[in-house]
């Protein structure tokens, strides 16, 4: 089986050719090691990072940005989005702090990516 795909690791966006022959997977077209790893996981178990926002109870800042702390399976994007959309933040947490711990048991936390709630304007 041969599959062509665009590597999404960095802005170069190399066009990869990933070939599976039984257990063996070979990646060509990559210009770095990360591209090879991406090609292999993309064929067997594609992973993605997702970024979104969570609602707060504060009137000055309605939403704050979050992301998952580690990649999650591509198929879990929408279930994780549902969890993120359930959150209503009532504490003025800072950048890097957890909003959901180990979301849906995927070994990734949902963390804040902004310090805006702690900033005084």
């Amino acid at each position, binding site marked *: 089986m041969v599959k062509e*795909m*665009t*590597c*999404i*690791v*960095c*802005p*170069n*966006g190399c*066009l990869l050719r990933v070939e599976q022959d039984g257990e063996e997977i070979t990646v060509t077209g990559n210009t770095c090691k990360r591209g090879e790893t991406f090609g292999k996981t993309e064929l067997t178990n594609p992973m*993605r*990072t*997702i*970024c*979104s*926002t969570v*609602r707060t109870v504060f009137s000055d800042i*309605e*939403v704050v*940005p979050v*992301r998952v702390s580690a990649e999650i399976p*591509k198929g879990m*994007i*929408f279930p994780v*989005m549902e969890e993120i959309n359930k959150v209503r933040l009532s504490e003025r947490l800072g*950048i890097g702090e957890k909003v959901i711990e180990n979301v849906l048991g995927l070994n990734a936390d949902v963390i804040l*990516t*902004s*310090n*805006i709630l702690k*900033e005084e*304007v």
Partner: protein
Amino acid sequence: MLKYDVTVIGGGPSGLSAALSADRANAKTLLIEREASLGGILKQCIHDGFGLLRFGEKLSGPEYVYRDIKAVYETDIDVSLLTFVTKTEKTDDGFILHLVNRDGVTSVFTKTIVLCTGCRERTAKQVKIHGTRPAGVFTAGQAQNLVNLHGLMVTKKCVILGSGDIGLIMARRLTLEGAEVMGVYEIKSEPSGLSRNIAQCLNDFDIPLHLSTTVKRVYGHDRLEAVEVAKVDEKMNIIPGTEEIIPCDALILSVGLIPENEIAEDLGVTLDRFTKGPHTDNSFMTDVEGIFAAGNCLHVNDLVDYVSENGALAGKAAAEYVKKERKYAKITIDRTLGYIVPQEIDLTTDLSKVEMYFRSFSTVKNAVLEIKIDGNPFMEKKYMVVRPPEMEKLVLDLSSAGLTENSVISFGIVKKEGDING
């Protein structure tokens, strides 16, 4: 009146870097920002992918910019938020800036200015779309601001015009928040955004990309009800009979960015017709002594990492600025390049590491960038491919190039000889 060595106008990524590097060079520095917090556009760019070059990490926009914001607040840099520059005046030894902010109307004196005013989106008025003027026509950045900073959903079912990166990012973002993105329509025959964004923002969510297709007309009285799309030929003229009506409640435009240079023009700075940003030398100083420019107001970058780097160079140059006689060599490009920055080389500066940025005019595989000085070959650089959406950076050593006043350094892209597979 407060006096500064360097005043940076704009608190986005280039302004933060410019202020930090001016401060490191011991300049008394003022950073002016019109919004309530620092960070510029990155505050609303909540997606990840920033900082790979600079930090070797994949950060979201707010995370990337937080590092510089934190660093700025740890220095003696004066930060003035919610502040507008309303008028500028040139004096013998610098500039007087008239400001409006919560303290009222004030003025400051500054020896140098670094313009870091970023860019603005091209709007619906700047692309030829016929029809009514209903609500529901947004630029991608406007939609991004409403969704990501205010938690307001702008659409249930939308069409995106233009395949610029922000449009692609918003296609994914709106899909994640439950909207149906009917498709991304691009008038050109190739996408304007990065390939990885086509992959992870469109293909991942089965959002179709229609090339050589544009939005011809919008329908709706109070709110957008539909758009009419049509295919275009090579000359970008609409092909009759290919029209199609697509019901939707929003049209999101990602049709290009234009450097913002209102203050620059006010100060008499000459703009380059290709970049639409100031014409600068290799210290990123404009043709008005003491005024520097960096980031997206200089030329529209595709990576923030370059914007930060460029801001740092301009900030340092501004801090080290002294008035003196200068000698210049000119830089020219032929039709194979979209633009090049800077446009002049100041021969009185250190020429061992001259940083330049360029874009090709069209896609060329197996390309060779040829650099000539007064018509004689100076250097060649090979590229597997050059594409207009991807900015290229060069660092040249021109110290032993034998440049003299009025030397001309010319740049052109040619296809590698003997290649027929192209």
